[in-house]
């Protein structure tokens, strides 16, 4: 199993743990990742809120490179994944748009590459049972609320991945890693996404709802598969606690970090040391690291 790898801008900066842990976990499972040569930014929310053609052209530049590589493309970041599959979907439906985009990107797009989220690769392509077999240090006693966010599962006819109202792939992976997947209602409630700068108050309110729901349902920590969600829940947790007078101190892990641990990898190599909310203390308490 070999995939082309599209890290996305945030995985080079604030979400470098996600990049480290994804590479490490995939390597441990024997899945090869080949970084897309000279990839560029997918434009995220800013592009599609400003210009439709730009919103499709930017991801297509990367898709054209991926088609030359001839491998299916893994996009760990939920926003990049959403933008890539939306571009593919729009071009599939509108040949005129496809022609315009090819003119802009100066490259031919055949639509042969399938874009996949990390969860899809691990749970569907690789298989939850195979992951369970390879787990050496099960995360016994860890109660995890798996948080999917919105862009990973919506709109369903475009993302074509899991279920928009009650997704279960991350829960399955959490169970496979030996931890306990907590039943909680805010799996796909939005965290505020790109308002991290413009309207921080909105991000704090929405993230607080999510943290409160996780806590009230007995979760020790939250697992995510999206750098934006992790950033809002993890980096702003202190400000949220001050703003709403609540105490969470709830580590926000990437699913690839938890799986890496369960596969026996070294916490440091998974980027576990550099979270805003201290992420190793909980693991040590539960003798998991």
């Amino acid at each position: 199993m070999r995939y082309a790898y599209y890290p996305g801008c945030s995985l080079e900066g604030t979400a470098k743990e996600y990049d480290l842990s994804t590479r490490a976990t995939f390597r441990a499972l024997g899945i090869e990742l080949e970084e897309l040569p000279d990839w560029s930014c997918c434009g995220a929310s800013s592009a599609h809120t400003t210009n439709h053609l730009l919103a499709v052209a930017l991801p297509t530049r990367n898709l054209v490179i991926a088609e030359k590589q001839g491998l299916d493309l893994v996009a760990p970041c939920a926003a990049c994944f959403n933008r890539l599959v939306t571009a593919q979907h729009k071009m599939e439906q509108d040949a005129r748009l496809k022609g315009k985009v090819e003119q802009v990107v100066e490259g031919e797009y055949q639509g042969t590459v399938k874009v996949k989220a990390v969860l899809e690769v691990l749970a569907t392509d690789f298989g939850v049972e195979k992951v369970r077999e390879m787990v050496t240090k099960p995360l016994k006693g860890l109660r995890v609320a798996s948080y999917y966010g919105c862009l990973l599962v919506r709109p369903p006819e475009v993302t074509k991945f899991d279920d928009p109202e009650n997704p279960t792939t991350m829960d399955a992976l959490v169970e496979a890693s030996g931890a306990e997947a907590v039943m909680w209602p805010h799996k796909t409630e939005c965290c505020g996404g790109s308002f991290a700068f413009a309207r921080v108050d909105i991000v704090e309110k929405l993230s607080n709802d999510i943290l409160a729901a996780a806590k009230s349902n007995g979760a020790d920590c939250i697992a995510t598969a999206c750098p934006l969600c992790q950033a809002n829940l993890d980096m702003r947790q202190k400000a949220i606690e001050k703003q709403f007078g609540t105490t969470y101190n709830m580590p926000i892990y990437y699913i690839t970090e938890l799986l890496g641990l369960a596969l026996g990898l070294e916490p440091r190599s998974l980027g576990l040391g550099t979270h805003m909310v201290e992420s190793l203390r909980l693991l040590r308490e539960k003798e998991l690291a």
Partner: protein
Amino acid sequence: MCWCGSNIASTVDLDRVQKAVEKLTNVVHVEQNKYTCSEPGQAQIVAGIREHNLDRVVVAACSPRMHEKTFQRTVAKAGLNPYLLEIANIREHCSWVHTSVEEATPKAIDLLRAAVAKVIRNTPLTTSTIPVEKRALVIGGGIAGIQAALDIADAGHQVVLVEKEPTIGGRMAQLDKTFPTLDCSACILTPKMVDAAQHPKIRLLTYAEIEEVGGYIGNFEVTIRKKARSVNEDVCTGCGICWSKCPSKAPNEFDCGLGERKAIYIPFPQAVPNKPVIDRENCRYFTKGKCGVCKKVCPAGAVDFEQEDELLRERFGAIVVATGYELFDHSVYGEYGYGKYPDVITGLEFERLINASGPTGGKLKRPSDGKIPKTVVFVKCVGSRDEAKGFPYCSRTCCMYTAKQAILLREKMPEAEAYVFYMDVRTPGKGYEEFYTRATEEFGVNYLRGRVARIYPKGDQLVVRGEDTLVGAQVEIEADLVVLATAMVARRDAAELAQRIGFSYDQYHFFTEAHPKLRPVETNTAGVFLAGACQGPKDIPDTVAQASAAAVKVAMLFSRDELETNPMVATVDEGTCSGCEWCKPTCPYGAIDIKTIEERVGKRTVSRRVATVNTGLCQGCGACTVACRSGAMNLKGFTNEQILAEVEAICL
């Protein structure tokens, strides 16, 4: 030529048409009329026939499916054989679907030329008669079927009422109270059920299904499969010892699975006939081969494990289909929990919970933990008015029964709070609006205008998130119980039953009536009538009205000893028929037989085989005329000559 007010005249230049048609051979007189189907219009035709000594008439107006019979009667009044008439459809097929006069006028001329070409080849036809079996079959033992059966039987005709479940009563038996008068459903239904059971002219066939239907109006041959009850109905007295002693239990479908019943059971106490049935999947005797307690304790020795399905073949003159409806499967709604939250129930389940003969004896207990709910939220239009996941139509009854259920809740438990999420409150019937106002004013039901976006568990309660669009704000309710008013949909096997009997159904599998406004209880198949929700969502008052209407239609049919048959049947030209029988296998009604005729050839009389058509059985579909290569088989009213003439007239 008819103006049809302006419907035709506005896009067809009838003067130009008249000029063109007057030149056609055989056309001796052309006139226009503003409303041909009106009395004066018809009188004009009769006068025209007499004055010009016409022997053929073409009426260029609306669809023959609309007024062919009217004009046939008009022509007959003038002494002309009614079948010497043809209709050119220049309204539905021409003026209404083409915008410019330049397009519609030449087309109207072509259609008229074709009608003239056909009518000059029409031959006078006379109807023959067939006997009518004065016995009616009613399929479905709900209130619609019971009402229809009672009315037909009271009109003095024999009725067989077939019901799939072990008892009649249908959906209505499951309800607690009925709107708008709040009288108890069982109190008004059970007397009718008993009447139906005891009526000398009605024979109840419960736990039975329709296997096969052949024949046609007046002479249906129906095969009914009487499923094995494993209880001999004649001997059983319904004493109930067997189901009190039966060891194995199973979820009771009648209570939507909320309550339990034994393997040998009657669905509900007032079941008619109150003879039990053995559910062979859950009965220990049938699954594991041991037990048989019921047989031992039965004082009348009615239990008979060896009983087999019975196939009854019966003849009927008319069929009333009253098979009712099902509820929409709300598990498609992820946002309402995919049907997995135990305290998110349907309206029917709510009826069972508050019903005295229900699983909780009438006390409203939550299915999850049996607690009495303090806050109940009713959500309307679940599956209705929703193209994305449900059906686009409105199910008509949910507004009223949700108001009723809210009232019952507040009446029984004044301390409970009732919320109703709605988009509109539709109260179309008599006393309906007043009933709704009682709900809001007298019983303080909180009506919130907005569709619920999401229901999710929080602790042991359910958070219902919606928007009150009148205030323009998001609202949230921590509810103990949520009742979904799910859409009324056609039964799963509706299409199959329709195909078996031979009438059509629409894209939602509701049965298609002959005409939505003018013939709501008839189908396009003569002799088959509809009543109740199987034809479309409707409440009990409309259902009963339709049932009585269908009954009158049946009584009308049986008022005559013989039935006029359709004269447009197949006919054999014995001179050209080779007796090859290629036509025989194509006839769906088995109306073609082979007979031997004698004829003189030279000096000798020789016998020869030719086909012959039983005009009573033939329905005039014409399949045999194409199988007959030599053209010996022809169809009156649609002969080969006529259709070829129409093709050529159009192509000139």
